[in-house]
């Protein structure tokens, strides 16, 4: 069964990362890279991707003539998707375990972020 693990944050939260030291950023990235390697080795890795900064996000609606109406204003509290992992696992519990590993990646200063990771199953394929 496939699950997507979603890392989210507010615009202000994301901007606070800019204050991290290079060493802390490297330690954080190294932990996540190690996890990707583990998941690849276990055959559970499907995909991972990071998204650009929330300040670049656009909200698009289609008008009657099909022309896109573009807006870049979001509520302050909006949780933006920062990145995701897609894993193919035997059980939801395993997906939660992997999410906990992402949550435990080091923060600025080396302590675990303990950030919440949203875990969602993919819809079963439509027939």
């Amino acid at each position: 069964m496939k699950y997507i693990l979603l890392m989210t944050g507010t615009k202000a939260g994301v901007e606070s990362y800019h204050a991290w030291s290079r060493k802390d950023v490297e330690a954080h990235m190294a932990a996540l890279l190690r996890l990707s390697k583990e998941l690849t080795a276990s055959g559970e890795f499907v995909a991972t991707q990071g998204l650009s900064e929330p300040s670049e996000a656009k909200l698009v609606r289609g008008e009657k003539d099909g022309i896109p109406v573009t807006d870049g204003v979001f509520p302050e509290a909006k949780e933006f998707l920062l990145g995701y992992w897609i894993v193919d696992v035997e059980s939801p519990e395993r997906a939660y375990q992997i999410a906990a590993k992402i949550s435990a990646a080091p923060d600025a200063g080396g302590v675990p972020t303990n950030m919440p990771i949203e875990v969602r199953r993919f819809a079963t394929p439509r027939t």
Partner: protein
Amino acid sequence: MKYMMMMNTMKVGQGVPAWPKKDLQAHIAFMRKFAKELAESGELVAAEGLAFPDQAKLVRAGKDGLPITDGVFPESKEFLAGYWIVDVDSPERAYALAARVSAAPGIGGEPLNMPIEVRQVMSAPPPEML
């Protein structure tokens, strides 16, 4: 350049299944046609639908590294319902595609005009960070 187009839903329980069957079929047919067109133009990278938000879990690591699982979300939380990743020549093309998805038919065949969040997908981190 790669863009992710996200369809978000506001609340648990406001799912598509409450629609009349005919409208639901028209909506799915539209989405399938859209995916087929993107595949043919070579712009489709990935597309997925997610299971309903009532199954969503929030997971944190405890001090021992074990998962702490929670299923309670704020009422105002937006849930990701599904997404497309497209590889396009310009942001404008991504917005045009998002506008098409936004106009997918809803109840009675009327365009939903739902907002689609469009975000550029980052390239891999620079090699010196790995």
